[in-house]
């Protein structure tokens, strides 16, 4: 957070229609500053101006797009500005960047009411470690006891306390029996490829794999190493799981 004292003010001039990889330059710059944790930035649209190309851009001419001048301003510490400059130079394209020395007399504050409440201030639990990812490739039409196989698998994983599973639907694919699975607008019954991605400890997954043998008639199951980084309010989520089960 920016503190009172000497700082740098950066002003960037671009045209409203300037693009950076298909996106407006100014919004790309703003996104960049936001996600780099800059304390604040403002975008101001001019009503007229000209730049290096000596074209006068003004609202007076009746056209739909005028490429009006845009000014992006932000104030940050000298170190931070130095860190941001190389990427800004790239983002600004043909525009202009200037830096001024400035003094922050009073730093901006967040409203007291918007400060985190004591409960929310509890940092989320960050857990890192080694785990396994199990990927199960099956077909959407595969059944287990008259129930869609992927649904039965999810239920069975939940019952076996597997940490989590996500189902992905493919658009095209083939597997062991060489039959193409595809999503076709002309077919009423879709048989798209389905991927279930499950992450948990190796022990839990190995213990669960006999279940797979009894349920999966055709498909592919692979296991790979993953590094997990999770954020969770542990006690809350575990309580919720217990409740929903009881």
């Amino acid at each position: 957070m920016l503190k009172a004292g000497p700082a740098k003010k950066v002003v960037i001039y671009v045209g409203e229609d300037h693009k950076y990889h298909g996106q407006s330059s100014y919004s790309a710059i703003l996104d960049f500053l936001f996600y780099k944790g800059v304390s604040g930035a403002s975008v101001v649209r001019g009503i007229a101006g000209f730049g290096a190309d000596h074209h006068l851009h003004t609202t007076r001419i009746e056209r739909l797009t005028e490429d009006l001048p845009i000014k992006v301003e932000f104030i940050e510490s000298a170190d931070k500005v130095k860190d941001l400059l190389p990427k800004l130079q790239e983002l600004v394209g043909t525009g202009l960047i200037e830096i001024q020395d400035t003094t922050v007399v009073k730093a901006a504050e967040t409203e007291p009411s918007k400060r985190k409440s004591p409960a929310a201030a509890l940092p989320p639990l960050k857990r890192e470690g080694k785990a396994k990812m199990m990927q199960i490739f099956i077909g959407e039409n595969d059944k287990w006891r008259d129930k869609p196989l992927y649904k039965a698998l999810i239920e069975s994983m939940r019952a076996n306390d597997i940490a989590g599973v996500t189902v992905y639907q493919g658009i095209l694919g083939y597997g062991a029996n060489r039959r193409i699975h595809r999503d076709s607008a002309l077919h009423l019954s879709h048989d798209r490829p389905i991927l279930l991605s499950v992450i948990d400890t190796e022990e839990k997954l190995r213990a669960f794999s006999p279940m797979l043998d009894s349920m999966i008639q055709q498909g592919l199951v692979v296991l790979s190493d993953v590094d997990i980084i999770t954020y969770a309010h542990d006690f809350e989520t575990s309580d919720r799981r217990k409740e929903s089960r009881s």
Partner: protein
Amino acid sequence: MKLEGRAKMLRIHFGEDDKWEDKPLYRVIVEKCRELDIAGATVFRGTEGYGASTLIRRPHLLSFSHDAPLMVSVIDSEEKIQKLLPFLDRMVGEGLIAISDVEVIKYVHQEGVRS
């Protein structure tokens, strides 16, 4: 076909509009995999993403032509995957190809179960 133990997973990321000789690239890749007798290939469509060109690929409700991000996942032995790579080098103009280690737990099909 049998597949067990240590294997490789190849993932190819590119765009839905990418073409190879006027055909959708993802179809060409799946056909090539089948031709090379690779164990399986699956194409997934992403909802949003960006890649090497940093263009945001975002399917738009109102536009019929959207360049959604696609991912093809191919699993087979290292040897088979290596056979596929030279073709991908030629066909994938702009995209990302990544290989990782996997362990095959199960690879079954109904015919195999019955016999």
